[in-house]
């Protein structure tokens, strides 16, 4: 086990993939000379050269599409879309090509493409640079969506993504990059489609993923001092969703709170709530609740942005609210 940042862990996976598979290459805006907008790929150009670490022009739709084509052609492209905000320009390629080509062709081909992107708010980047659109991606059949919330997952889920025969979208929350965690660099790929219980607890289940995980764990630490034991389920993969782990936790705790940085309406959290409704209804002691982002384009000012995003304090407050009054 080594202590390293989420950023370094992601880089470690990239390096390992580039070293071990000649079909793997990385492309995206400024992944090479600049070293990556978030410095994830720093040093990789020097190690692997410009054929395998490719700076692209500002052409999101086209370089994502080129990743699809290169995957068809026998390569294992890793495309970095600098942030999810810019992926809006590439959604045609993603939804109409990456997700559909296999099916449309009657199963003749596969698109083993990995697309990585930074996601989320919290850095005062305002309304065009703070989206959390993981829930949108999770709507699309034919693709896989992973959302590592720890450094170890940043490495292992990326390695796992590269084993998949079909397109995988990896969402790296920008707020996690500098966070440190224990990483086992000898461990193999993680398991896609498997959630993790990050903390056990009997009083309620808090279900979350990605950049909200540390905030949830902060909240549960506070709740613990009040005698409230929350179980924390880290979804890790949004599509396919590990519904079984969610339902098992709810069956134990009988209450569920979902924390999701997406805007509330039509958030991924809504899907989790609907699944619990459909398959865990009779386990519930009260309604499932959500803590999501406020329904507002992200404001720049720090205090306003903080108010717009889920925070440890709002999460803890929502949890308390769900439990029967004590004493």
């Amino acid at each position, binding site marked *: 086990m080594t202590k390293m940042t989420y950023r370094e862990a992601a880089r470690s996976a990239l390096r390992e993939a580039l070293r071990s598979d000649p079909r793997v290459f990385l492309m995206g805006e400024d992944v090479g000379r600049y070293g990556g907008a978030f410095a994830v790929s720093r040093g990789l150009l020097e190690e692997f050269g410009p*054929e395998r670490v490719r700076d692209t022009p500002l*052409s999101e739709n086209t*370089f994502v599409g*080129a990743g699809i084509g290169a995957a*068809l052609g026998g390569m294992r492209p890793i495309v970095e879309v600098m942030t999810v905000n810019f992926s809006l320009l590439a959604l045609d390629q993603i939804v109409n090509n990456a997700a559909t080509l296999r*099916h*449309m062709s009657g199963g003749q081909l596969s698109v083993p493409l990995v697309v990585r992107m930074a996601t989320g708010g919290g850095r005062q980047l305002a309304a065009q640079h703070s989206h959390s659109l993981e829930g949108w991606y999770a709507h699309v059949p*034919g693709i896989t969506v992973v959302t590592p919330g720890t450094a170890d997952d940043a490495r292992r889920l990326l390695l796992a993504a590269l084993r998949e025969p079909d397109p995988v979208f990896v969402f790296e929350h920008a707020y996690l990059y500098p966070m440190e965690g224990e990483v086992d660099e000898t461990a193999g790929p993680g398991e896609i489609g498997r959630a993790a219980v990050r903390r056990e607890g009997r009083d309620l289940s808090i279900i979350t993923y990605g950049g909200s995980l540390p905030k949830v764990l902060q909240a549960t630490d506070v709740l613990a001092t009040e005698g409230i034991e929350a179980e924390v389920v880290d979804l890790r993969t949004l599509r396919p969703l590990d519904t079984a782990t969610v339902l098992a936790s709810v069956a134990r705790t009988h209450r569920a709170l979902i924390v999701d940085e997406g805007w509330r309406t039509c958030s991924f959290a809504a899907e989790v709530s609907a699944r619990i409704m459909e398959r865990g209804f009779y386990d519930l002691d009260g309604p499932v609740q959500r803590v999501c982002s406020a329904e507002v384009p992200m404001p720049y000012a720090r205090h306003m942005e903080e108010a717009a995003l889920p925070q440890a304090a709002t999460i803890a407050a929502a949890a308390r609210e769900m439990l029967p009054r004590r004493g």
Partner: protein
Amino acid sequence: MTDLTRARGLALLRQMVLIRRFEEKAAELYTEGKIRGFLHLYIGEEAVAVGAMQALTADDNIVATYREHGQALVRGVSAGAVMAEMYGKANGCSRGRGGSMHLFDVSRRFWGGHAIVGGSLPVAVGLALADHMRSRRAVTACFFGDGAVAEGAFHESLNLAALWRLPVLFVCENNLYAMGTALERHQARTHIVGKAEAAGVAGDSVDGMDVLAVEAATRRAAEAVREGAGPRLVEARTYRFRAHSMYDPDLYRTKEEIERWKARDPIALFTAALREQGLLTDEDIAALEASVGAEIAAAVAEAEAGPWEPVENLLRDVHTPMDR
């Protein structure tokens, strides 16, 4: 037209006639409700697919649009597999999942039928990138219409292909209309080759009604691409004789304009040229039509006889099966 042997002449003519008769039949079957969804006919444009495809080898990649029966047939996808696909049968070339707009045959490196205008260009660039990185000496030929030139993807794709000197052959089938919008009403400057050149892609423009001219231009371009000169663009000026799709009332063109172009029917032109050179007789034509007719009849029979995919397989082919 030197060097044209009788055999080659007949082969080119047969390919064009096959497309024509195949589509005439498809239109008929559409009216009968056997074929549904969108059906875009290539009638009038046959010389482009036939001419261009001569310059491509089995190692090359083909990427086409939703108006791709011609490319598929010339590439060797059987008329039966295409017809069955349009019937939605499980013996269709895309297992009935794709229909007319999404013909695929990966064994022939026929990477589809794409229905988002401009959306296939980036994919073609990627196929060429893979070839480049794998040192495969192959060309990726990407067919698209004049309408696609308006899409940002056209410019982005040409730039990326040129920047990385990728072996892409862009073939613009300029039939002067994007649905009901004439080229000069969707492009401020209609000079498509000039746009390619501004992006760093050398281009050439050719009479798309002349199958040999298309072949020659494509061959020159494809050879340059194959030699590592980077991408090239060929614009073939052509015309569709039918409406955009079976839904289109075709109100935006004059009868005279259509008739003017029909006078340059690529099949009629090539037939006349072959005759003039004494390479084609009435008996040849009769034999050719008979053989094409038989092929199409067999294709229809194959489609009719084909099985329906069981509904239980609805979720098949969303993901690739994998041992975990």
